């Protein structure tokens, strides 16, 4: 790295420019990653938090349109290999309290079932609010609210479940059924905890469609569209950064062609030259990525109150690592041409 370090210092302007580009791309990728994870959590945390490994849908593979009957549920509870089958009602509705009205998602469960936190406190007159629902409505335990026309008491405030960007209100299954029109469905889906159940056969018998819990996320309409487009943007940013880094080091290596020929003629091994060039790329990438990720984390933390930005090692370190790996791949492809430089060109007229 003898020459590489000195080149970094000598060609400050060029490397600073490139470093800035890496910082900005990393910042963008970092913000996008935090936002994707934050929005994703707002979308699905109520489902990913369910103590279930499979979800059985009825009629349609969609949390909005699925309905299951009590008969289907009972059939699942009797299926061998199913440790628990709990009906779950899902409806987006409106809650009001003290003049404030917000959209909430009512999750109806059987009182005492382990699907909801504090579910033994659920009654036909009491609900459990997630923290964000409580905050949006300005309620604490013991207060009352109106949910789809029913006056209910807040039994407790716990958890941060949210579904389709709406805070969750846990209700008893009966209360949930009353939020829906008369003769409405028994529940929306059945949450299953299985161990070696033959779900395909059980599905045929019960007339349901069962998928793994995490695969059911795509049945949340807003999630698949939103997550897909954010991931696509992130993918493009990664590809762009690899290309930009590759292009920069291609031009840089060509500019250095004469220097490389001299060093080779003087006896530098190709391995040393390659290692130095990659080391230089690594320094630039690591520096830019650390600054960019730091800025993204800082900005994300500052905006966390207004924007659903999720700041975890996963959302910060993973994109940073991917940036470095892809950037190094781009650099490796471009510094490869060092091997092709002929030391003979260093001799004046033998060009």
């Amino acid at each position: 790295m003898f020459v590489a370090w000195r080149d970094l210092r000598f060609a400050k302007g060029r490397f600073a420019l490139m470093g800035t580009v890496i910082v900005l791309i990393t910042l963008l990728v970092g913000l996008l990653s935090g936002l994707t994870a934050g929005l994703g959590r707002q979308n699905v945390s109520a489902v990913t938090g369910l103590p279930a490994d499979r979800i059985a849908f009825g009629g349609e593979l969609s949390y909005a349109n699925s309905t299951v009957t009590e008969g289907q549920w009972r059939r699942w509870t009797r299926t061998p290999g199913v440790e628990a089958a709990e009906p779950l009602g899902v409806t987006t509705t409106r809650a009001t309290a003290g003049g404030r009205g917000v959209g909430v998602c009512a999750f109806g469960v059987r009182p005492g079932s382990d699907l909801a936190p504090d579910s033994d406190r659920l009654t036909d007159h009491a609900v459990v609010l997630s923290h964000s629902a409580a905050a949006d409505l300005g309620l604490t335990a013991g207060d009352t609210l109106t949910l789809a026309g029913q006056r209910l008491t807040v039994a407790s405030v716990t958890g941060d479940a949210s579904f389709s960007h709406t805070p969750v209100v846990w209700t008893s299954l009966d209360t949930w059924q009353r939020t829906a029109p008369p003769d409405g469905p028994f529940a929306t889906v059945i949450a299953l905890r299985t161990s070696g159940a033959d779900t395909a056969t059980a599905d045929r018998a019960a007339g349901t469609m069962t998928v793994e819990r995490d695969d059911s996320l795509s049945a949340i309409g807003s999630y698949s569209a939103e997550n897909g487009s954010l991931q696509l943007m992130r993918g493009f940013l990664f590809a762009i950064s690899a290309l930009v880094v590759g292009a920069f080091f291609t031009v840089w290596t060509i500019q250095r062609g004469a220097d490389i020929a001299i060093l080779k003629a003087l006896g530098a091994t190709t391995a040393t030259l390659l290692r130095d060039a990659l080391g230089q790329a690594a320094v630039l990438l690591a520096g830019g990525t650390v600054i960019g990720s730091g800025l993204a984390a800082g900005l994300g933390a500052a905006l966390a109150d207004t924007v659903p930005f999720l700041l975890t090692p996963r959302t910060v370190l993973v994109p940073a690592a991917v940036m470095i790996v892809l950037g190094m791949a781009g650099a490796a492809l471009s510094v490869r041409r060092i091997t092709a430089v002929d030391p003979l060109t260093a001799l004046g007229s033998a060009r």
Partner: protein
Amino acid sequence: MSLRLTDVTLTYPDGQSRLTALDRVTFAVPAGALAAVVGPSGSGKSSLLAVAATLIAPDSGTVTVAGADTTGLGRAALTDLRRHTIGIVFQQSNLLPSLTAAEQLRVMAHLDGRGRAGARTRARTRALDLLDAVGLAGQAHRRPHQLSGGQRQRVTIARALMNDPTVLLVDEPTSALDNDRGAAVVDLLTRLTHERGTATVLVTHDRTHLGAVDRIVGVHDGRLREEMVTESQ
């Protein structure tokens, strides 16, 4: 003999046929002697230097450097040979723009990428000694663009001596310099050759500064002809 070329023939592809750049050349230089190779443009001087520097393999004949036959050596072995036993002074004081004069010399201790702290510390001292020997003690911290053409050429000469080479190959060292400076560079090379015992080959098309060299060899169309040998050798 520190450098010996025996019956060396080198051809380049030239359309359908081949162009003979060196024609059965036999040439040897002992330690401590400076041989000037002089010839018109296109006569084969650079080709001779490239073959002696192991940068190009001859079609036939053998090149022996410091007693080692280079025929059939692989690229890695030739790179090692160049690093340890051959010093090259390029035509256009080919220095690296980002390094100071002292660093141009110190880089020679980093070419194999193996970090031996002792060798690198010694290189630091040796670089300053060599810059002193070529009269640049005060310019060690300057970068190439802060040096004159003659100073740059002297840095290149000092660099070529860093690894204590057996053979010193010099390509047109005076072509970019005016008369006085050209003469000073040839004098410096003669002195260093005698002091350090290198076998030096100086290639040039310009006979003006060759008064004090040990030996002059003419090249024409790839053939060598001995012109002058100093008796004192």
